[in-house]
């Protein structure tokens, strides 16, 4: 059985869905951050797969950019996590609702 682009897309879709579900339902801010990383990596996989399939390097370049951004995002996200914990002594996302209308 050869591995086709479809396999990559299915894996990527599953990863993205797990990440999205994690962002939407997990209470812990750290877990939410990790789920976001998972979604970004699902996208990377998708980009690489199409780059290889279409023999176009643009996808791989984009993937490198996304990794770079993801590093920054993780840094800022962790900083926010620490700041939130210092203020509220908790990392529960549902309690950080002071912007409620």
């Amino acid at each position, binding site marked *: 059985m050869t591995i086709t682009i479809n396999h990559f897309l299915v894996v990527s879709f599953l990863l993205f869905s797990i990440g999205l579900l994690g962002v*939407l339902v997990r209470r812990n801010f750290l877990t939410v951050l990790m789920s976001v990383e998972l979604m970004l990596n699902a996208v990377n996989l998708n980009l690489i797969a199409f780059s290889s399939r279409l023999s176009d390097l643009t996808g791989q370049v984009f993937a490198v950019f996304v990794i770079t951004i993801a590093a920054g995002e993780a840094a800022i996200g962790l900083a926010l996590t620490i700041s939130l914990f210092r203020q509220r002594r908790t990392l529960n*996302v*549902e309690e*950080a609702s002071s*912007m*409620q*209308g």
Partner: protein
Amino acid sequence: MKDLLWLVPLFPLVGFLVNGIVYLVSHRTRGVVVAHPMADQPAAESSLESGHPHAHEHLEAHPRFKTLHTAVGVGSVALSCVFAFGAIFDVGVRALASGAHHVITLYRWISLGVNESTGQVPGALAEWFVDAAFRLDSLSALMIAFVTFVGFLIHVYSVGYMGHDPGYGRYFAYLNLFMFSMLVLVLADNFLLMFVGWEGVGLCSYLLIGYDYHKKFAADAGKKAFVVNRIGDFGFILGIFGVFVLFGTLEFDGVFSAAAADPSRYAPWMTLVCLCLFLGAVGKSAQVPLHVWLPDAMAGPTPVSALIHAATMVTAGVYMVARCNVLFRLSPDALLVVAVVGGFTALFAATIGVVQNDIKKVLAYSTVSQLGYMFLACGVGAFAAGMFHVLTHAFFKACLFLGSGSVIHALAGEQDLRRMGGLARRIPITYVTFLVATLAIAGVPLLAGFFSKDAILAAVFEARFPQAPWLPRLLWSAALFTAGLTAFYMFRLVSLAFYGRFRGTPEQEAHVHESPKSMTVPLVILAFLSIVGGWIGIPILHGGNRIGAFLSPVIPALAGEHAAEHHPAVSLEIALMAASVGAAMVGLLLAWLWYAKGEGRVPATIAARFPRLYRLVANKYFVDEFYDSVFVEGLAKGGGRFLWEVDATVVDLIPNGTAAATRGASWLTNLFDKNVVDGAVNGVADGFEKGWRLARRAQTGHVQNYALVMGAGLFCLVAVYLIFR
């Protein structure tokens, strides 16, 4: 020269303009104070020295440009007089007497388009128009002759009398304006131009009565004269309207020839028109009930009283009635009213004159009484006799007034007869001229008043009133009694002023002096005319007289009227003359006995015996008080209250109704505003509030909710995209 007739009124007009402008310019720099330095003095200083120059003598202010004012004021009237006589002689006295007349049209004054009633109205012109035109016929010739001549004499007299007055220029300007207006009045060829002159003399009368306008009584008298005259003028202009409606023209020739040609056509309306015209004459000529202004008019300077309020202006009413004699003869009822008013006024005013103590007031009531005579003559159809009396009266009454001015001048402003006396030797020229004029007005034979008064009495005796056959005898008795009264009060005046001992203060006695030449010469001339002025009307027994013949062209026969040349028997005429002379003699003799010899004891006894009667007459029958209470108080105040009621109920309905309507409208608007407008505004606000209460729920603050919605939205968009691709 007859074509230069328009110069006759023009000269005084130019004189008025020159004098008026020079006076205004020369008095502007130093203001009103110079012209009227007495303004700060109490008006009640002395009501007796009204209009007398000596009242101003102590003033520093002297008339300025006096020579110029004299030259222009007197010169213009002199020129006017020369041209008037020139025009009369150019046409010719005989020609005038036989009906010649001369009309000069200056310009078309008012043009009103085509007259549609032409052909239906005899004599009506093809066009409605009013010309500024002058007319010289025997009646206007008579008038301009004596108006300009007596006017000239009085102007000369004024030079002496007003010589010290600071308002000298103003005085002559007014006097010239008066001459202009009076000449327009008598020369006018139509009713409207006559009305212009009529109003002009009224204005000048007002200005000159109130000449000393800083004195309240003079200003009030001027106002009174003006207001009372308005009542008459109102009637006069209504009469003019009536004439225009009936005849379609205002020209004398057109109106009178139409009326004379077809009397029955116009007769039904003539009573109304004539009574309106006569109301104008009553106002201008001070007949009962509008006589009240003339005695008060004596507040003006004495020459003004002589010229305007005795010799000329007040006779304008008689002139107008005589001019309109054709119309009046169409209406026996109107003539009856004229005769009764005239006869009653003659007697009424004469009785008041008997008890007056102010020298000018006596003469004023005498004037009213003599004007009554003139109307009486017109009323019985003797228009020529009326005009004859106008002429002779102008001479002797002007002489009397100027003489009284000379007396007042001699006594430094004293007008009260009770403080005079014994002046005969002190001021002989004044005395002699005054005596001559007195005898003339009293009707002493061969003097002017005798002939004119006798002509009137004879005409009244012979008059026929189909409506009231007894009336002529009654009027004749009244007129005869009035003749006696006239002689009585005039000789009473002479006795009190010139005979007996002096009753004034020693200072006054020391001041007595004869007047200057400029005053005595006119007096002498007028006295002379008082003697000979009546000779033109010497009755030729059984054939009228020359003045009657001269005026006959303006008194044309009516169509269908039988020229009933009815002459009384010679014996009757002589008897009537004897009666009038007898009445005059009795009056003279009584006055001489009671006042010159008896020093007023008999009249005092009579006055004490009948105190109520004396008070009634001395207070002029309380006519002024009656008018005050009825018209001034009653009408003005009661009328004011009535008008206030009308105002409060009827007129106020408009503002009040408007207010109520506005209130109702505003109530409606308020409802609309509250419910509809506010409802919309609040409704929108409420809607938004409800909206945001719902919308805020979406903003939970839970980031994951937002993410979910975002995801759901993305899903929906992609789904829509995929489905509808």
